[in-house]
């Protein structure tokens, strides 16, 4: 570390120590990533959050080794997972009372849990038993609480967690994605010391860094859980894991809950409704995996908070280009497509932290489809956030996503028959990343060419194609951009906003914008000062923020006499056609 300023040197040394910790913990597991990222995967048991950097060393293979160790060492010792069962049962009154009492004690100690004292009128919306363990879920004053008392044979753990605000009820045949996993308090007591054989096994097989994790597994403490809301027609929920195990969730009163005493996420969820059972892959529908991090992306009311229980459409057999060309159509995306886009955008928000976590999870002002991409535009905290999920060519690049956070605040609304010049995006561009597979060694020349084009766009466009968006007056019904090569692009107009984007290499420079209102259409030139990605001189409330519209003439006229003024964004339309 070599910094000119001592304060930066000193600050950097703290990062160096954090890096050293992360390196020591290894980087091959998601736990390491979570630890490095400061995320708290809620794991109840001996493994406290302080120990996550150590747990980070538990790579997949090592975890498998630990599981094996559990099996190997279980003979003659309390049975692993003895306090747990894959299928829940109804808890006895005393077991539930014990669990809630302990949860209340643990939560109250941290002062962060809003659970009412036991013995009151609050009733759980869900209660279950798995072996000797008991759990309860409460929804009190719009907040959700989870209580789990794991009564293992060698270890007892209390997990008492505030899960965040109550969300809207999912559709009858839907399942909400699990609530986040922040706000938990935990406490544990070992009931039996490790046997000499266990100690020796740990010492010989488990590296120091993972010994703590291994110890927890040995004494059947710890695990993950999933908690969420279920639609009224959902009768059963089952999670499947890569290790071949399945865990049946409790489904009661519109809620589902399950926990399991191992540290991996499920790979799929099967939801049973009156029309049958649908299995959805977890990783595709749930960025980040189950419980791997808090899920602020899923806010109350978000359409992205549900698993889609509809069968996904069969992949298109046509492998020709599905690229977004210069004349895409815009339409309102299907709800599922919006939900997917919302999840992807929110996942990127978490990754790149360029927007508020709830930028797209609530109400979205504008949604637009261009080819296989979906754009979301919203106003949050006084700024305009845009996210585009999609790609250029689905057989090569399934997804490409980016965020745009305008550096400016929301401007004054333009006049009824005006649109604002585009907002700037270049001052607030977030990161982007490609999704999906890339052409392999056996890719066809066409696929390679397409990939090169995508890469070119990434380089030239900073990771995305050009875009334009701004506000539209209430009388504006359509906005069309015309390019130098004569092609046209219809922008989506919705809720007082317009938006369009196009692959960089697919279009020449935009030359005019045509605005349609109830009184006709107006075409204005786009130049370097009011075209895409430019907002210089366009301040809230200034007249320079709109394309100026001249009085309607009864017939089309051409008057390319007035050029846009430098430093402002006013333009004079060159063609006006009355309807």
């Amino acid at each position, binding site marked *: 570390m070599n910094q000119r*300023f001592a*304060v930066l040197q000193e600050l950097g040394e703290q990062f160096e120590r954090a890096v050293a910790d992360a390196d020591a913990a290894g980087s091959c597991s998601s736990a390491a990533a979570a630890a*490095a*990222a400061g995320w708290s995967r809620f794991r109840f048991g001996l493994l406290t959050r302080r120990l996550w950097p150590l747990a980070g060393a538990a790579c997949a293979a090592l975890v498998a080794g630990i599981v094996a160790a559990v099996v190997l060492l279980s003979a003659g010792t309390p049975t692993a997972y003895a306090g747990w069962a894959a299928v829940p049962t109804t808890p006895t009154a005393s077991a539930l009372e014990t669990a809630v009492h302990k949860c209340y004690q643990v939560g109250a100690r941290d002062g962060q849990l809003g659970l009412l004292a036991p013995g009151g009128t609050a009733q759980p919306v869900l209660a279950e038993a798995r072996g000797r363990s008991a759990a309860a879920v409460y929804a009190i004053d719009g907040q959700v609480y989870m209580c789990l008392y794991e009564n293992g044979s060698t270890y007892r753990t209390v997990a008492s967690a505030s899960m965040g605000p109550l969300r809207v009820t999912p559709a009858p045949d839907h399942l909400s994605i699990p609530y986040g996993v922040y706000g938990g308090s935990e406490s544990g007591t070992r009931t039996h010391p490790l046997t000499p054989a266990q100690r020796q096994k740990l010492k010989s097989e488990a590296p120091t860094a993972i010994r703590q994790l291994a110890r927890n597994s040995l004494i059947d403490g710890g695990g993950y859980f999933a908690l969420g809301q279920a639609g009224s027609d959902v009768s059963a929920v089952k999670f499947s894991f890569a290790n071949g195990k399945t865990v049946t969730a409790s489904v009661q009163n519109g809620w589902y809950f399950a926990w399991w005493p191992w540290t991996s996420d499920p790979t799929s969820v099967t939801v049973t409704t009156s029309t049958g059972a649908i299995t959805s892959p977890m990783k595709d529908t749930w960025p980040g995996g189950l419980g791997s991090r808090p899920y602020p992306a899923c806010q109350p009311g978000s359409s992205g908070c549900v698993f889609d229980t509809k069968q996904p459409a069969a992949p298109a057999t046509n492998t020709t280009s599905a690229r977004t060309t210069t004349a895409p159509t815009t339409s309102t995306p299907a709800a599922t497509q919006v939900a997917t886009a919302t999840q992807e955008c929110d996942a990127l928000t978490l990754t790149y*932290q360029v927007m508020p976590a709830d930028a797209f999870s609530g109400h979205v002002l504008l949604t637009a489809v261009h080819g296989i991409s979906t754009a979301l535009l919203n106003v949050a905290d006084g700024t305009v956030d845009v996210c585009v999920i999609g790609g250029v060519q689905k057989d090569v690049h399934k997804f490409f996503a980016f965020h745009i956070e305008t550096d400016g*605040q929301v401007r004054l609304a333009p006049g009824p028959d005006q649109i604002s010049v585009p907002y700037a995006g270049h001052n*607030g561009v*977030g990161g982007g990343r490609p999704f999906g597979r890339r052409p392999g060694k056996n890719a066809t020349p066409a696929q390679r060419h397409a990939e090169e084009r995508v890469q070119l766009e990434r380089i030239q466009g900073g990771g995305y194609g050009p875009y334009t968006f701004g506000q539209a007056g209430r009388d504006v019904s359509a906005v069309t951009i015309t390019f130098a090569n004569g092609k046209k692009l219809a922008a989506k107009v919705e809720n007082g906003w317009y938006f369009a984007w196009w692959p960089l290499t697919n279009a020449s420079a935009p030359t005019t914008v045509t605005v349609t209102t109830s009184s006709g259409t107006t075409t204005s030139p786009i130049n370097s000062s009011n075209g895409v990605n430019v907002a210089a001189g366009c*301040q809230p409330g200034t007249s320079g923020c709109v394309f100026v519209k001249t009085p309607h003439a009864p017939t089309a006229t051409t008057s390319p006499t007035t050029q846009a003024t430098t430093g402002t964004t006013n333009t004079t339309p060159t063609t006006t056609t009355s309807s």
Partner: protein
Amino acid sequence: MASASAFTGFYERNAEVVLLFFTRRTLDVEVALDLTAETFAQAWRGWPRVRLDSVEEVQGWVFTIARRQLGRYLRRGQVERRALNQLGFSVPELADDEILEIEHAAGLDAVRSALGVELQKLGDDQRNALQLRIVEELPYPEVARRLGTSEATARARVSRGLRTLAVALEPTFAREGSTP
């Protein structure tokens, strides 16, 4: 996924430019250091999922975080410390001579001079609002009371004033080569 060790080089390459970026925009080295620390703390938290496809892309990413931090600071008047607190990091103390050194490196004299000019160009409403809110650090209800407006109007004037100044000063920043 970026390796943890790569973060050290990333910090080494970008810490100073981020610090100067904040210094020029806040005119306050201590605030700038706080913002820098929080920015890199957030970057560290997001590091495991960063793709190191290009240096420019990663630098753009950290400046996106920086701008968001700056925006929050300007809106709320305080530096967020969420990531710093989660990581248990502390912000080092600045010595007086180092403050001067950083101010000099940031070219604050030129920025302040330009700011003075641009302030005079603002309307009375926005300038008075900025004076009360930014200089005197009064709460918005008090700013509104003194201006004889609603709190929303006071907020709007401060916000627009800051925005106008930011845009006006952007060429100054750009000349100094600080804006990525």
